[in-house]
């Protein structure tokens, strides 16, 4: 996996220089024309970027502002009028969705679903990934290619039999079903990413460890895992966000029961039941975004890597 972040790579930020070896006059003419085009071009560039950024932020800002406006205001005047005096902002909407619309319970449910559904697959994947990276066995490549193929298998292709399975065992509608299912669905990517990362560690290091009498377990816990903290961090963020933002698996394996519904399911239901209750819908939606946004801003580099690495996941 290439190491990409949002930060531009350090490199001299020099504007394109033009020089010709031909006559002085021609050079001046060119420089002048270039200067004109440059200034106009720079202005257009800043303008274009400004407009794009504005459009991209506008919907989120609209949601945020509306979620703090009293219901009497949201239904009658646009959110953009909120910045006129007298300011009327309130936390009532949040209070209301948390206590009456089940969002408090759903927030906890989302956490309770996402944490085990993140920890388990990564732990399970790490052992398999280590075997794929540093152990010799017949069929290793063929088996790993199956994992690569499984990366893009759509969840829909597996969901009906998985639902049957959890129903037969009697765990449909409980968190156990969704933890196990997310573990299965998250594994191909986790194995893929960790195997590539483990595989890129220097071979000599493992050889030296084995010569010193280290067992594979020691090499795994003392060398491979500690050195892979960045990859694991990206993976944790990716898997956590995937589960946190998931609607389909929760909808199917948990059903509509409010006491186990994560926020995505509850919000989808609120959209139906509240209809035009925008003051509540916006607050509910923003509640579900808080954690991802905090993770995004606090751990941006890992976050971006995780998402990008996960681009191949199905």
């Amino acid at each position: 996996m290439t190491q990409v972040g949002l930060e531009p790579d350090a490199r001299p930020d020099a504007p394109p220089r033009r020089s010709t070896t031909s006559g002085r006059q021609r050079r001046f003419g060119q420089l002048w024309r270039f200067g004109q085009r440059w200034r106009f071009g720079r202005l257009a560039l800043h303008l274009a970027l400004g407009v794009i950024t504005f459009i991209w932020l506008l919907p989120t800002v609209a949601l945020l502002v509306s979620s703090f406006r009293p219901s009497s205001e949201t239904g009658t005047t646009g959110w953009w009028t909120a910045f006129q005096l007298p300011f009327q902002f309130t936390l009532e909407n949040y209070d209301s969705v948390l206590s009456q619309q089940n969002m408090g319970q759903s927030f906890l449910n989302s956490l309770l679903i996402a944490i085990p559904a993140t920890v388990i697959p990564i732990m399970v994947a790490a052992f398999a990934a280590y075997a794929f990276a540093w152990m010799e066995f017949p069929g290793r490549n063929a088996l790993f290619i199956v994992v690569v193929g499984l990366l893009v298998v759509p969840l829909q292709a597996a969901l009906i039999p998985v639902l049957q399975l959890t129903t037969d065992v009697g765990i449909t509608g409980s968190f156990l079903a969704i933890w196990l299912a997310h573990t299965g669905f998250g594994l191909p990517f986790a194995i893929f990413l960790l195997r590539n990362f483990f595989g890129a560690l220097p071979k000599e290091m493992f050889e030296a460890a084995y010569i010193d009498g280290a067992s594979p377990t020691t090499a795994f816990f003392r060398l491979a895992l500690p050195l892979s903290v960045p990859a694991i961090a990206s993976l944790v963020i990716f898997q956590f966000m995937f589960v946190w933002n998931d609607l389909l698996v929760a909808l199917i394996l948990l059903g509509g029961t409010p006491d186990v519904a994560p926020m995505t399911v509850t919000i989808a239901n609120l959209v139906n039941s509240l209809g035009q209750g925008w003051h509540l819908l916006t607050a509910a939606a923003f509640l579900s975004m808080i954690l991802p946004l905090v993770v995004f801003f606090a751990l941006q580099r890992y976050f971006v890597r995780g998402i990008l690495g996960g681009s191949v996941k199905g």
Partner: protein
Amino acid sequence: MDLGTLSTAIIVAVGVPVATVLFIVVAERLLGFLPERRRTGVRPWFWLFPGLAFLGVFLVYPTVKTIILSLMDDRSENFVGAENYTTLFGQRGFWQVILNNGLWIVLFTGVVLVLGLIVAVLSDRVRYETLVKSFIFLPLAISFVAAAVIWKFMYAYDPDIGTLNAAVSAVGGEPQTWLTEWPRNTLMIIIVGIWMWVGFAMVILSAGLKGISTELLEAARIDGANEFQVFFRIILPLMMPTITVVGTTIVIIALKTFDLVYVMTAGNYDTEVIANLFYQERFISRDAGTAAAVAVILLVAIVPIMLVNVRRFRSQEAMR
């Protein structure tokens, strides 16, 4: 808060990893009884076992089972051959779904790639690059469900609520119902998808862009190429591999799109896509056979991309 659930969550979150570690430790103990020579042959299978078991139970077996179910009736009791497929192909609704997913693939993929590339190229030339990219990337952090709420709010009919209709009214137009008429509603939902995923294309393309040597571009400029020529004759061809990688990912997203349609229109007004049809057939019509057939069609559509990925992986491995 239900303490029972909480304690189960803690037990499972801690217990399963601990059990996995114990499993490996015990396995290593058992391996100790084997002769040295046999150990290296047996060990990998112990290490692989938990992972392969999960993959088998929750991905491989269910996918095979789905293919079988697609050949059986609505209650999965009798074999009906290709009947589910022929019924599907005979419905107008199915072709509407295919048409919509086609629109998703073409428009969503096309616009995400073009806009992603434009933002990557433009932001590469300014000092506040990181800031712009953060803001464009931000929608990717939130769920499709939250994004659907955000945009339903933007598209609301009342010009005193919906930002888009407020803008339309401000320039003297009539407020529109953005989500009730096909194909406009599908386009409006695709816009939400674009809003979410441009950041993804942008970051990967931007990384690819920075991999192009500045000397090469300088040389072209000195030889008299203008910025457009530099872009279309040098940057674009060099970035083709990256563009393909991003493109395949975006096509998969387009094929699997579900949440946005589910929340914004519930598949009404002809906006239904494959993943919604799957849900509809299984949970509203309660027809497991047809639902499985829909899932198989989705799987078949993704197989070419799977093969491309496997091939790319093999050539990467060959270079290691």
